[in-house]
């Protein structure tokens, strides 16, 4: 006897994906509908922004950032893109290409910053100059430049493609170490304050698997290869651990993160350093900081004066470590 193919929960057409956490299968059309509904629910539940706001979407060329940009535009929001060239060899060249094509095909406005051209360094060089893992310099550079571009461009909010897996993994790591300051700030919306723009994560109700499937059925071409610098990082290990739990108990990731937001986050309100009024201004660039000189200015100073480091050198060191 031949088994019946899975059917879409909504229309009974052949399904393209099974989503155990919803105990359901979906066809392409209803998968897209599910993703849009979940994004709209997150925007409404956490009071992120309205269609009158100008949004700046931080795009990397990966599935999540291109998907959120696509979903926002399709839902009638005003959203421009911001891409930062990180100088991670071929990976950055490919990523930039996906972003450029996405924006061009849809006639969307894209702002581009290049770390090497605009700030005199790249991520491999910063990793060597600071003697820290590449992800550290990468994250710091992106956060500062997204903030600056949003404030300079008069945008109402920065939008990032952080999804449920990203947030659950960060929450897992912060909980393992009881990082109360970080836990108090791990919210899907951070309001604008002291020179920081408002920051929103509309994909927090959607998993990575759902976002990748969304891109496939919408025909969005994205960089599938993992960043070579990220291989073996702690964040990936947390995701694997959470996925092992999810396999045994579908819906666990969502319950872990969303129940944190509804039950735990209110108890942590006011516990972050920023909420306690410890943030001042960087004496060099004026950016908000807890020290005299912000971490980004210190990074630019160290890395910008360092001889350029080829990506292969950092990768070789990285591979030896893992």
């Amino acid at each position, binding site marked *: 006897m031949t088994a019946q193919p899975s059917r879409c929960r909504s229309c009974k057409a052949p399904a393209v994906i*099974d989503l155990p956490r919803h105990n359901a299968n979906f066809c392409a059309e209803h998968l897209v509908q599910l993703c849009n509904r979940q994004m709209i629910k997150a925007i409404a539940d956490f009071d992120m922004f309205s269609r009158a706001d100008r949004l700046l979407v931080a795009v990397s060329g990966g*599935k999540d950032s291109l998907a959120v940009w696509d979903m926002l535009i399709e839902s009638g929001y005003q959203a421009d893109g911001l891409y930062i060239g990180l100088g991670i060899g071929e990976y950055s060249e490919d990523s930039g290409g996906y972003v450029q094509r996405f924006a061009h095909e849809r006639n969307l406005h894209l702002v581009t910053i290049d770390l090497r051209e605009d700030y005199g360094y790249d991520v491999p060089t910063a990793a060597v100059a600071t003697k820290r893992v590449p992800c550290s310099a990468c994250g710091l550079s992106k956060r500062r430049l997204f903030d600056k571009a949003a404030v300079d461009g008069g945008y109402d909010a920065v939008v990032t493609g952080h999804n449920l*897996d990203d947030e659950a993994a960060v929450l897992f790591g912060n909980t393992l170490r009881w990082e109360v300051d970080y836990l108090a700030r791990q919210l899907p919306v951070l309001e604008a304050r002291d020179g920081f723009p408002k920051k929103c994560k509309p994909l927090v109700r959607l998993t990575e698997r759902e976002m990748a499937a969304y891109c496939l059925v919408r025909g969005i071409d994205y960089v599938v290869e993992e960043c070579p610098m990220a291989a073996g990082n702690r964040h990936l290990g947390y995701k694997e651990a959470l996925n092992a739990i999810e396999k045994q108990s579908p819906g666990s990731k969502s319950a872990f993160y969303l129940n944190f937001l509804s039950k735990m986050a209110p108890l942590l309100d006011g516990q972050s350093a920023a909420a306690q009024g410890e943030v001042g201004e960087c004496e060099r660039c004026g950016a908000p900081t807890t020290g005299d000189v912000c971490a980004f200015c210190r990074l630019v100073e160290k890395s910008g004066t360092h001889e350029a480091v080829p990506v292969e050198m950092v990768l070789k060191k990285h591979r030896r470590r893992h």
Partner: protein
Amino acid sequence: MKVLLRNPKREIEVPGGRSVNRLLDDLELSREAHLIIRNGTLVPGDTRLDDTDVIEVRPVISGG
């Protein structure tokens, strides 16, 4: 059937006659961390795969 894997990119030959979920289990890959594309089309976990299929196993986890 031909199975294309990523990170690193490679191609292996695997006998058909098994489901998507079974293929992922046999390859020791997490169902939550991968999608299966059969002959260019996304398919759910209980789909039966044939010897003549070309399968892409697409990882969905990113480390950022």
